[in-house]
């Protein structure tokens, strides 16, 4: 296996580093936070650029509106809070003042999904990708590791339009090269294979890397695609790979409804019907527990990717 573990870090720290770098390189970038500066790792930006950092307090709806207003005059606002408070709590504000109004706001969401852990279901949003990808004009990005989150944070400043950037809390292996170029909408093929295509995003990319080795022992050659951009979806990458392998597994830390799997199935059902299996949370809220315990209990762990790949492979007949 050619995957070298370059270190272990949380993706939110990748966001923090990327934002700090933007603070030095792009004078138009401003940042807003709703009382979670430390959790979002926005301290470095705040320290270096106090005049371009806006503390919104525990008032997320106002924060989204402020950010939309700050685009008028040419600023590029990055908002930071937990994924739950970045989406569900402020959906209407994003819909009207950001997406419909085509404002250049970057909604940066940490602690997404089950891996927020012990705080439990109130904070573990599993519907946010669905909500955000339904919005016209919205770009949806779920980077895979620390390095990619940093690269994506920097890259979206160059994209003129609303972006939802989703990342998380747990410390996970780093495998994306520090000098890799992040291209919005261009998937990364991490491993080539012939029997099954695994399309993953976020923390499930690492879980899928782990699954590759197990599948290899079972004699199954899996292709792995890091689909870091959910919208716009890299349709060509999906069709090219599924055309070769003939079956697909999608893997994500999100509800099955509305997530990456559904986006991929829209492509396959129209362009290339073939067996697809879903590694995702099945219509359920989460609960308290460690991140890894929760991934196992809710069926989004390495073994679940393996099982789904075996099943998809078997369904090819």
């Amino acid at each position, binding site marked *: 296996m050619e995957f070298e573990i370059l270190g272990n870090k949380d993706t939110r720290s990748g966001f923090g580093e990327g934002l700090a770098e933007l603070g030095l390189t792009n004078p138009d970038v401003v940042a807003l936070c709703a009382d979670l500066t430390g959790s979002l790792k926005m301290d470095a930006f705040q320290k270096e650029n106090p005049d371009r950092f806006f503390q919104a307090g525990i008032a997320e709806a106002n924060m989204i509106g402020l950010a939309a*207003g700050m685009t008028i005059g040419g600023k590029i606002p990055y908002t930071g809070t937990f994924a739950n408070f970045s989406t569900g709590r402020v959906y209407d504000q994003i819909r009207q003042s950001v997406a419909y109004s085509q404002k250049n706001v970057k909604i940066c969401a940490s602690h997404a999904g089950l891996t927020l852990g012990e705080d439990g279901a109130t904070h573990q949003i599993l519907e946010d990708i669905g909500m955000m990808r339904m919005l016209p004009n919205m770009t949806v990005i779920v980077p895979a590791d620390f390095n990619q989150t940093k690269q994506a944070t920097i890259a979206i400043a160059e994209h003129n339009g609303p972006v939802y950037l989703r990342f998380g809390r747990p410390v996970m292996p780093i495998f994306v090269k520090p000098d890799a170029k992040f291209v919005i909408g261009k998937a990364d093929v991490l491993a080539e294979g012939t029997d099954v295509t695994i399309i993953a995003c976020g923390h499930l990319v690492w879980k899928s890397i782990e699954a590759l080795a197990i599948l290899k022992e079972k004699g199954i050659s899996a292709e792995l695609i890091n689909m870091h951009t959910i919208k716009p979806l890299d349709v060509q990458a999906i069709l090219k790979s599924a055309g070769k392998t003939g079956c697909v597994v999608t893997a994500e830390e999100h509800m099955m409804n509305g997530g990456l799997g559904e986006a991929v199935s829209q492509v396959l059902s129209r362009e290339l019907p073939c067996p697809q299996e879903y590694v995702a949370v099945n219509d359920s809220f989460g609960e308290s527990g460690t991140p890894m315990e929760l991934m196992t209990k809710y069926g989004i762990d390495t073994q679940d990717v393996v099982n789904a790949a075996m099943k998809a492979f078997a369904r090819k007949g």
Partner: protein
Amino acid sequence: MENSALEKVASQVRRDIVRMVSAVNSGHPGGSLGCADFLSFLYFEQMNFNAESFDMDGIGEDLFFLSNGHISPVWYSVLARAGYFPVAELGTFRKLSSRLQGHPSTDKKLPGIRMASGSLGQGLSVAAGAAQVKKLTGDKGIVYTLHGDGELQEGQIWEAAMYAAANKVDNLIATIDYNGRQIDGDVEDVMSLGNLAQKWLAFGWEVLEMDGHQFEDIRAKMTAAKALCGKGKPVVIIMKTEMGQGVDYMMGSHKWHGVAPNAEQLTVALAQLEESLGDY
């Protein structure tokens, strides 16, 4: 501008409003008529802007955000009369493919509009953000907003009110259309705002009260509001208005909040409003 000239503008704007909503049998004439004097003053005397070449960023200009987007007819009329787009386009209001959507939007690129509104309570946050960028960049422009009184029932308004005072956003002048009416009836009955001036004072704002139908008073209070800018506090103007002002049968009730006059009613309304600048 002379008061008589402002009155001519406002009269024509009122004609535009009732003709626009009647033509498509939909829209919100009541609040639109009530704010015709204020918006005429804002665009024909108060604000500094460039209507000929609209720029989204509005650098160096004063900005206006309509937070209660349902009174779009009055804004569209004033924008057209102020030179943002041809007045003939008012005839497309609410029609398929028009730039004049039922509620204001930016996606059809109508000059003069910088933010969609309609879902209530969002405009004050947007305005505070735009105002902070002006301060950050040394832009001397002032940011104005208009809100319905019923709209103040939305919680986000008070988030923004707290934020703007705490952060000394003192280049922001918000105006409340205090007509006392909302869809279901009188604001007092639906959900009382209590002592509105005291609420804003308690949130740390400068508070002015104004008669929204007397140009002398509008001029005095808007001048005072502008003079209060740069002194550490945002400014709110509680503007007393009459919903439906200028059309006798629309005044004195909430009934014409979102109902358009039919052809016969339109004739009655137009007979009360001077065609001062020529109909579109």
